[in-house]
């Protein structure tokens, strides 16, 4: 105990040196927590944007559908199936869809489009479709109308409340055709989807494609997006081999790769940060050893064992690092929470570019407690490893040489 008391007193013998050490650790923790939480926050937001845009976190299809996306690979909608999926605690919602390609035609114009049959209320909860409306009204379940993408209408020279005809191939080779009133116009971030997306109420789509009560997918929303793979696996186990359960990572591997790439870049930034901290701590350790060379030699000379002296030096370093870490974590909490509530927002052309691809140009932080814990512990670990330097020097300390003027 007296060694700890002595360590505490020693810590404050050179206030500037201790302040430099603590400050370097403090800023290191704050910056690394911020970097880490910003990294996760940005990626979480990106994923949220991507999945809420269209795909959802998890989709259930008939086995083989993803490889061959045909209506013939659809499956029968079943309340029992929905119940089984919803029985998983991680699943918070299920939205049915029936998707296929068709030709949209009006007067002299015909364009290919992606027809998506949806349950309007459930779809809105998942992808906030109603919010994307720029004209007209949102769909109702029993409507025999479409909600068309802005780009598609432009290409077809159509307007709200005009009528278009859809022609395509239905279920099991049947001819699919129908005439629909344009009830709403929506704008989508992705130029690709904005030029070809067309929503129909599920019943209308099933009727057109001659696929009564059939679906191509159930889109699932999850409680914890971080556990999306485990959740899909658990749903897959429940549903068996008749269905395929795919997370967004499997459906959009390019997005996953992009995140991985950016994540690696961020890690390089963090690595530089850790290097800076290491030099800060190491520098003060060097200063301390040079300043106290005589004293350490004297303590060994009068009979203080090197193990006790090592414990003393280690305790001094640990105290400095610990205080710096705790202060850093305490300071980073309000900053991270503030940036979560008031995210960094890009403006100008960059923001427009982001929005064009359907992403909000904002960079929120993640408030996951793991950022504070892991970054705090990591900096603590760096501090502890560097604290071994004085200990190693001490092992080789020769009291006679140390006390030489």
């Amino acid at each position, binding site marked *: 105990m007296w060694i700890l008391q002595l360590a505490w007193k020693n810590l404050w013998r050179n206030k500037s040196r201790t302040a430099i050490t603590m400050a370097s650790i403090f800023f290191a923790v704050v910056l690394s927590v911020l970097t880490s939480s910003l990294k996760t926050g940005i990626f979480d937001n990106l994923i949220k944007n991507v999945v809420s845009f269209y795909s959802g976190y998890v989709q259930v299809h008939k086995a083989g559908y993803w490889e061959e996306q045909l209506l013939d690979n659809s499956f029968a909608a079943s309340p029992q199936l929905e119940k089984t999926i919803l029985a998983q605690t991680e699943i918070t919602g299920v939205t049915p869809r029936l998707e296929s390609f068709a030709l949209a035609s009006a007067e002299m114009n015909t364009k290919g489009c992606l027809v998506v049959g949806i349950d309007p209320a459930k779809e809105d909860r998942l992808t906030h479709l109603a919010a994307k409306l720029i004209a007209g009204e949102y769909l109702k379940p029993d409507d025999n109308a479409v909600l068309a993408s802005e780009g598609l209408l432009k290409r077809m020279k159509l307007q709200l409340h005009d009528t278009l005809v859809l022609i395509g191939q239905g279920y099991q080779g049947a001819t699919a055709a129908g005439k629909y009133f344009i009830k709403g116009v929506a704008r989508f971030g992705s130029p690709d989807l904005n030029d070809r997306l067309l929503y129909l109420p599920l019943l209308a789509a099933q009727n057109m494609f001659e696929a009564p009560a059939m679906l191509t997918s159930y889109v699932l929303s999850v409680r914890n997006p971080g556990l999306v793979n485990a959740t899909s696996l658990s749903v897959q186990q429940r549903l068996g081999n008749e269905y395929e359960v795919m997370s967004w990572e499997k459906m959009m591997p390019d997005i996953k790769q992009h995140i991985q790439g950016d994540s690696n870049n961020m890690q390089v930034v963090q690595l530089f940060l850790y290097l800076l901290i290491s030099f800060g701590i190491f520098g003060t350790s060097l200063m301390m050893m040079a300043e106290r060379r005589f004293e350490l030699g004297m303590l060994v000379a009068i*009979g*203080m064992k090197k193990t006790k002296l090592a414990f003393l030096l280690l305790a001094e370093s640990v105290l400095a690092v610990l205080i710096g870490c705790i202060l850093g974590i305490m300071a980073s909490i309000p900053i991270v929470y503030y940036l979560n509530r008031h995210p960094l927002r890009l403006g100008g052309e960059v923001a427009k570019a982001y929005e064009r691809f359907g992403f909000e140009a904002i960079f929120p932080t993640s408030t996951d407690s793991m950022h504070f814990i892991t970054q705090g512990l990591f900096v603590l670990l760096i501090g502890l490893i560097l604290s071994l330097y004085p200990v190693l020097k001490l092992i080789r300390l020769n009291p006679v040489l140390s006390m030489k003027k």
Partner: protein
Amino acid sequence: MKTVIDAHNISKTYNKENIPVYAVNNVHLHINQGEFTALVGPSGSGKTTLLNLIGGLDKPDEGKIEINGIDISAMSPNKLIDFRLLNIGFVFQSFNLIPVLTAKENVEFIMQLQGIPKAAREERINNLFKQIDLVDKMDSRPAQLSGGQQQRVAVARALASKPQFVLADEPTANLDTASASNLLDIMALLNKEENITFIFSTHDARVIERARRVITLVDGRIVSDTAKVAVHEE
């Protein structure tokens, strides 16, 4: 009279590979209990090296050193640290005390290393501070004490472990006349009343004057060893 230190033909050479420096050269030395001895000689004569060898801070290249009949030349560095803690008191020229501890805590420190219980420590601290006449400065930090007072606290710390002898390396080198005289008075008194053995390395005439035995070193060899009439008996 009991022999405390018995150095048999010890030598210490530095820079053996290039131009060897014989810091201590075939020195034979006995120090008895209760002696008040000064090791004198010009700079580089080997006083401090001899003191370091006797104190177990360094090892001789040749010969052996026995403290109370125990050969310390063959001890491992770790055992030597323990041996020093229990048997030898040190007073250095300067930077002697731990700056963050009070005078009392500095003296107590050595007893904490020895694992002496609190009550026994308190009692010994009070006695020691009475002896060095610094009871009113017990709670002062080294920086609040004069050089002379700091050296008195260093003497108290050296004595706190109840050592076989005290080695003092130029203890008065940084002190003014009055402080040096006062320090020497205290050490002489402790020597007289408690029969504590003191060995100084010095070239301070004031210390040489008070010493009862003066050993003169030149180029690592003892060139004279003179016993004087005890000052405190005069």
